[in-house]
């Protein structure tokens, strides 16, 4: 617990410095998440960056395979049936920097996105969505297998 709080503090500090140096623009700083959110090292800190704890919901689905033949390319996506879903986040729990991608969904666009992520090892994949300003999540485990020959 202690160590993760320390990390959070450090990250916040670093981010403030980035703004003061003008490395992070005002518009980026105003977005729901910022560049620094993608650097945090734990799932808790990633959730903090997104805006707090997320309630698990059966209206949210993580699309990720049960088994990935190769961790370099794992098809991952998320869908939400919750009305007014405006943001979708993909978090890979065991990656060094868990927050992997964020999607901002304007009105008229479906809360249904897919991409491909790297995974260093078998891990939980968490989708967090923001709907009506509240956070909801769903989790699924993906096993990453070792390949043949040199693997």
């Amino acid at each position: 617990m202690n160590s993760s709080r320390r990390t959070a503090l450090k990250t916040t500090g670093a981010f403030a410095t980035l703004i003061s140096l003008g490395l992070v623009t005002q518009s980026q700083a105003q977005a729901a998440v910022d560049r620094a959110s993608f650097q945090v090292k734990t799932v808790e800190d990633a959730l903090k960056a997104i805006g707090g704890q997320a309630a698990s919901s059966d209206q949210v689905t993580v699309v990720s395979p049960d088994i990935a033949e190769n961790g370099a390319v794992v098809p991952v996506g998320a869908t939400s049936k919750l009305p007014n879903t405006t943001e979708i986040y993909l978090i890979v729990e065991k990656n060094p920097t868990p927050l992997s991608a964020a999607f901002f969904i304007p009105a008229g666009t479906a809360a249904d996105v897919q991409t491909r992520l790297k995974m260093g090892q078998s891990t939980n994949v968490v989708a967090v969505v923001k709907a009506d300003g509240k956070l909801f999540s769903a989790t699924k485990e993906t096993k990453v297998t070792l390949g043949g020959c040199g693997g």
Partner: protein
Amino acid sequence: MADPMRIRAAVAGDEVTVRVLMSHPMEPGTRKDASGNTIPAHFIQDVEATHNGKSVLKAMFSGSVSQNPFLSFKFKGGAKGDKVAVKWVDNKGDTRTDEATIA
């Protein structure tokens, strides 16, 4: 300059499905080369898709998105013949915009 994207956009009913492949190394900045030196980060950070000039999706990527990124999403209000444009910007400030016609 970066290689072009492959964008496919197809309408079915009232929904347009857009599938994008981007040509990019997506180097996270944490890997080491054979001689032990860290390979500098080089990855796409921001992606935005527009339909007739109106934003239909924004995304932020980390270096954990796979090399040659794939992105798929759906939006309403598009018609056959309309243009869908996708723009990305990477951490080095390099950028690329490509366009496709909805089929």
